[in-house]
């Protein structure tokens, strides 16, 4: 699947350090497939104990229907390495998260699941926080975000991840093609454990 542009209303969750236990609590991690993980998204912020929705939570508002971009506070996705977090976001239609920074493991996991982590400068972030439900455009190819004011800001993405998203490159397929180099490395390798001994 190629991933070039997003144009969507933004949902704003102005909280720093949103951890992966909030994005999807551990009790949803017992599944052996990816199916149905979307139900666990922000479970304890989104729903009451009896399963009824909390109307004040941003993704429960009527405007949130069809939203593809989430704007959050700094250091989004910190904590556990669970890839269930991007899986749950994607299963709820989120295609990009905009913040001032992301936790490393979450960022890597997101990029492998067609979920775009977008880091913007503080002033652009401040504008977005003040513009819930405004329409924002993200262009992956030119690495630009068009803010509600019409101003555009650039965002960083490493060249390889960008190619994988835009061209639909299969990362594992690419790695398997490196087999000769891997075999050559293994032939020279010294000092190793053997877990099967």
């Amino acid at each position: 699947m190629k991933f070039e542009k997003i144009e969507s209303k933004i949902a704003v969750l102005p909280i720093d350090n949103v951890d992966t236990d909030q994005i999807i609590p551990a009790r949803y991690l017992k599944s052996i497939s990816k199916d149905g993980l979307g139900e666990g998204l922000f479970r304890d912020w989104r729903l009451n104990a009896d399963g009824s929705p909390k109307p004040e939570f941003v993704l429960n508002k009527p405007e949130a229907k069809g939203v593809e971009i989430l704007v959050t506070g700094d250091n989004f996705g910190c904590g556990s390495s669970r890839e269930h977090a991007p899986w749950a976001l994607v299963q709820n239609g989120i295609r990009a998260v905009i913040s001032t920074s992301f936790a490393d493991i979450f960022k890597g996991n997101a990029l492998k699941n067609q979920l775009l982590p977008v880091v913007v400068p503080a002033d652009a972030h401040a504008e977005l926080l003040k513009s819930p439900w405004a329409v924002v455009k993200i262009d992956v190819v030119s690495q630009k975000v068009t803010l509600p004011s019409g101003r555009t800001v650039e965002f960083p993405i490493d060249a390889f991840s960008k190619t994988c998203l835009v061209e639909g490159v299969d990362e594992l397929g690419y790695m398997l093609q490196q087999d000769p180099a891997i075999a050559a490395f293994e032939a020279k390798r010294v000092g190793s454990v053997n877990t099967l001994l």
Partner: protein
Amino acid sequence: MSQRRTIVEKIWDNHIVTAQPGVPSLIYIDLHLCHEVTTPQAFQTLRDRGLKVRRPDLTIATMDHSTPTTPHNLPILDLVGKAQLDQMEKNCADFGIRLYNLKSDKQGIVHVMGPEQGLTQPGMTIVCGDSHTATHGAFGALAFGIGTSQVGQVLATQCLLQQPSKTYAIRVEGKLQPGVTAKDIILAVIAKIGIGGGTECVFEYTGSTIRGLSMEERMTICNMSIEGGARAGLVAPDDTTYQYIAGREFAPKGADWDAALARWRQLPTDHDAEYAHALTLDANELEPMVTFGTNPGMGIAISDNIPDPASVSDPIEKSDLVKALKYMDLQPGQPLKGHPIDVVFVGSCTNSRISDLRAAASIIKGRKVSPKVRMLVVPGSMQVKKQAEAEGLDKIFRDAGADFREAGCSMCLAMNGDQLEPGEYSVSTSNRNFEGRQGKGGRTFLASPLTAAASAIMGVVTDVRTLL
């Protein structure tokens, strides 16, 4: 080459398979640790694509996250959790991977089992689908947590595509005062730099205090590197490291040992090598630490008061602190010491090794757990459990009214049925105090095994120095 390198750069250079412009470096992985929660979808990818595990001899699995801590010969009542454990058995059998299952006397938390078996060795690259993989950095290994897609990539290719990390020296100098432990050092570091402070970095813990720590204490510190946002954390190997490894099952033997030792001695950071960031901490000034909020950076010395949002200027930071105090139902400006608690948990990959259990038992011995408190002691592995029983620690805990259980992650992340009830407060030796981490609505104060044990006795958050 005259360039001075840090240990992180040396390990990195030793593992580059290919480095091409525009593509992250392809890095070889020496050891892949697996557990039941983050691997099923990766094995499914291998099946879907008709792939094999490239190096089952560099891969090992255990069961820890979903495992009950009730006796392992009893039937598992949680059928969803059981299905995950059954799938792990099947995946390891189908792909030829050694598994320490619930019947094995080597089963345990993946980050306790690896070092204990001598699998974790200096200079290695080690990965696991678990953010606390940095624990293995205590041995001078570059060890980091990965997602499930990457678990699949490592299973299939024994490699990862990685960008180099920035280096971050954390120097701890001086002598720890009585009652102050490795856990207090790392909680103080995280309180200082914040939970995003180490993003894109690898911490190297150094300085006289770190040199004086045991391997288990170093593991506690490296374990929580992710809580400071770092990709990994490590300590350069020294004689303490080599003495710990020697003679363990997977440690090199004979001439291989001598060759390994010669290689390992080359690893420490060169004199005058430069780091991108550095922080120095004075161990003499540290007190026992405890967290009050909903992330591990929200920590204070036990004699300090809970911070006041009124003193915070950044609007999001302020509202986060207000939100945390509301969730925890705590008042700003008040001491945390003396706050009533319901549960004490001694366990997790941070603090469930034999020295942690000995520390907790030293406080518990001859005393009783407060009748208001439920105390769980969960050894990190079946080997730790066996050792604790040989030393009579199980009896000390049980005589005091605590519950001494089977090995696993248990109440650190509450996947296995060991959990807090909504509104309950715990003092926990684990690594995360996120909302609901130990059970929906539960509230966690992170602390050392000494502080946890003292709090269990008194029934309130306690300064352990009053019981020494």
